[in-house]
């Protein structure tokens, strides 16, 4: 590990609230260590601003371990910055160099309005999950955990889909601001497991319809989402979701017409 110190020029999106217009503000970040995380760099900048009596930059973050999905910065044109497979909080300043200009923006999507500076409202994601992202079981009265063996390959595949951290980078990466990767990950987790079968098609339909209602765009398979997803959620999830959604419509129509 070789620590370096650098000076950077930040162009940061500042916006007071949802109802005001925002703009880029240039801020100098001096004496930044290459060992800092990106958010620690912003902490240092914020401490300086505060000492000068200026409002610190608001950004969302919590765990700083790459798992809560709260951090959400668009850095030099890329959600979560230049490094693949990492969240903003796990990005370190050694990925940048002395004298560099860094442009920092919030996620841009109609369904994710900016609420202040770099923070956006992602509650649309919660509403999609509420529409059907569950197995309808109550607490208690369930069978023994080992009553249903699940082939390891299936379980592992379901796990891969379940790793989505709900950050929204896929939406921010997509020129249509589509939420397909996020929604399909959840639908796939349940579609792959026996527990999810009973409600499989209803779930797909309910979640997709809510997604459309929230104003997310369509998928035109540019694959930008897959490239920017910090946990590597695969496009194959989207294909599975589309199949299930079509099946849902088909079954529904069958019930209506029979």
């Amino acid at each position: 590990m070789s620590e370096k110190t650098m000076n950077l020029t930040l162009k940061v999106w500042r916006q007071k609230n949802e109802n005001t217009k925002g703009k880029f503000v240039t801020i100098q970040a001096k004496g930044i260590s290459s060992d800092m995380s990106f958010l620690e760099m912003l902490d240092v900048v914020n401490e300086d601003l505060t000492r000068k009596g200026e409002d610190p930059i608001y950004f969302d973050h919590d765990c700083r371990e790459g798992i809560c999905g709260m951090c959400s910065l668009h850095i030099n044109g890329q959600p979560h910055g230049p490094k693949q497979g990492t969240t903003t909080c796990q990005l370190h300043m050694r990925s940048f160099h002395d004298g560099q200009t860094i442009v920092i923006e919030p996620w841009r999507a109609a369904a994710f309005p900016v609420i202040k500076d770099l923070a956006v409202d992602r509650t649309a994601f919660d509403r999609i999950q509420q529409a059907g992202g569950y197995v309808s079981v109550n607490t208690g009265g369930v069978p023994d955990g080992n009553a249903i063996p699940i082939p390891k390959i299936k379980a592992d595949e379901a796990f891969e889909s379940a790793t989505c951290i709900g950050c929204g980078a896929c939406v921010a990466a997509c020129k249509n601001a589509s939420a397909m990767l996020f929604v399909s990950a959840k639908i796939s987790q349940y579609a792959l497991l026996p527990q999810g079968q009973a409600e499989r098609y209803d779930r797909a339909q309910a979640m997709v319809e809510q997604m459309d209602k929230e104003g997310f765009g369509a998928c035109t398979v540019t694959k930008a989402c897959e490239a920017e997803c910090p946990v590597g959620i695969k496009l194959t999830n989207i294909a599975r979701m589309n199949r299930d959604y079509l099946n849902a419509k088909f079954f529904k129509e069958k019930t209506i017409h029979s």
Partner: protein
Amino acid sequence: MLDSKIPEGPLAEKWSKHKFNLKLVNPANKRKFTIIVVGTGLAGASAAASLAELGYNVKTFCYQDSPRRAHSIAAQGGINAAKNYQNDGDSVYRLFYDTIKGGDYRAREANVHRLAEVSVNIIDQCVAQGVPFAREYGGLLDNRSFGGAQVSRTFYARGQTGQQLLLGAYSALNRQIHTGKVISYTRHEMLDVVMIDGHAKGVVTRDLKTGEIEAHEGHAVLLCTGGYGNVFFLSTNAMGCNVTAAWRAHKRGAYFANPCYTQIHPTCIPVTGDHQSKLTLMSESLRNDGRVWVPKTVELAEKLRKGQIKASDIKEEERDYFLERKYPSFGNLVPRDVASRNAKMMCDEGRGVGTTGLAVYLDFAEAIQRMGEDTVRAKYGNLFDMYYQITDENPYKQPMRIYPAVHYTMGGLWVDYNLMTSIPGLYALGECNFSDHGANRLGASALMQGLADGYFVIPYTVGDYLTNLGSFAPVDKKHPAFEATRKEVEDKVKKLLSLKGSKTVDDIHKKLGHIMWEYCGMARNENGLKKAKGLIQELRKEFWSDVTVLGDNEELNLSLEKAGRVADFLELGELMVDDALNRSESCGGHFREESATPEGEAKRDDEHFAYVSAWQYNGDNQPETLHKEELVFENVKLTQRSYK
């Protein structure tokens, strides 16, 4: 007087009998009650979902933008349950026994036994929800041994058990939000409890987005707000973790139990510099295969620190595998407190490694040789990647550097067997209460406790309280207590916003962290603690006279959010010190240097300290009153823990 309400009867029958004796609320009447759940981590989400399923109206609150982001999400290692799927001799009684012993005999037998009993139901519940636990080739659930347990009882989902369990509870919660039984408030911080006639009847919250300060009414209030490790500034907790909810409740009359019991986790990535904002934990499953060592001599350690030699230059006979040497039967798998303290001892002796000297090695060279790099990658790949990401060092090629970090707080709001605090109608669940881990928590048992409290305990116990209210009438929202409490919170916010000094909130928080770590951390002594008390009092004055809080109330306000939390930490810190001073024995995570065996191991004093310390608040800057709940052990024999 403290009444723990532990049911009569033989240990294994207490919970079933108690469940039978608890009064039930008629299904048609449940919808007449509203329950407030603050916090949506494992404890809060599971409680809220289960109560709503039963028919209660529930309101949930969390400070993040979504319930799914509670810090439970960060748990890596796993969750214990006494399923004995591995046929290796596990049982409810063994899990109970291990937890009591691991907690250094400072937890209640009855609570811990209940925890062990319901642990098996938790796994069934999570599987039914579609939580993708690790499985074996035959399709059945896989287990591993964790945190020094002699049996394999830990269920896991790769390195993200917490996220998968939380998403399970979150999905159950979402289902209830969808039905309208739960109203979820996100980006809301709870800042006070509303008290009417000595009972908790609501909370006051601040909408972090709009600044609106609002009172919410409920027939009961459940605090599920997590731990207070961030009093140390640096910890493995999320940045927003706080004591505010618990502390404000404490100031309204809820006793705070065992505040000095903190757990310092041995396998974290060491601090690099002043800019550090948090510490990253690496699952202790790493100790299953990694070997902990430092050089045998200070000279070699010095050369390492100066970068003159590398770890690989140190010959086998020049290495001190100190855990294996001192604890031959447990070796690298000794409990967390023992591993942490020993790492500190090595560094204090001048044998620490890394540029700061505050690190020991965790070496996988032998494991790679034994199992091959691919197997090691399959087992620990994500942890190795994370380490590489943060340190820029490749753990396949050179040993990891680790150092202990504050990780978990066993102390918390005092609760009785029903999880009710000393305020009627106010409950505490999960890490926010003190209940089950005594003076030291075993690995993979916090997730178990959070879900046990939420899914399987509170749905029974809260009903008994509600029935005893003797009325189904809605809470009178017009009662003056609501507006009065709301106004008090508003005034406090205004006071914070009026502070225009020269220090930032983080300046003060970092100072507090240093004091706590230095004097109330891994080892404590009377002089240090007394000194810390004075330092904290001074720091509190400095905060109120010289800190600066910018911006307005009516917006997302970073300074204001932090200031409120740090103000509470500054008060809690002093209570932790008082508690540590009072407990002049060593037990679990609380090591008093004055109370050690000749070999330097922690020495308990059961004669004088087999009790829970429950502190009562008496007003600003007033000493708190200590209440003692004697711990009665009818089933296990108290022995000095030995991992030799």
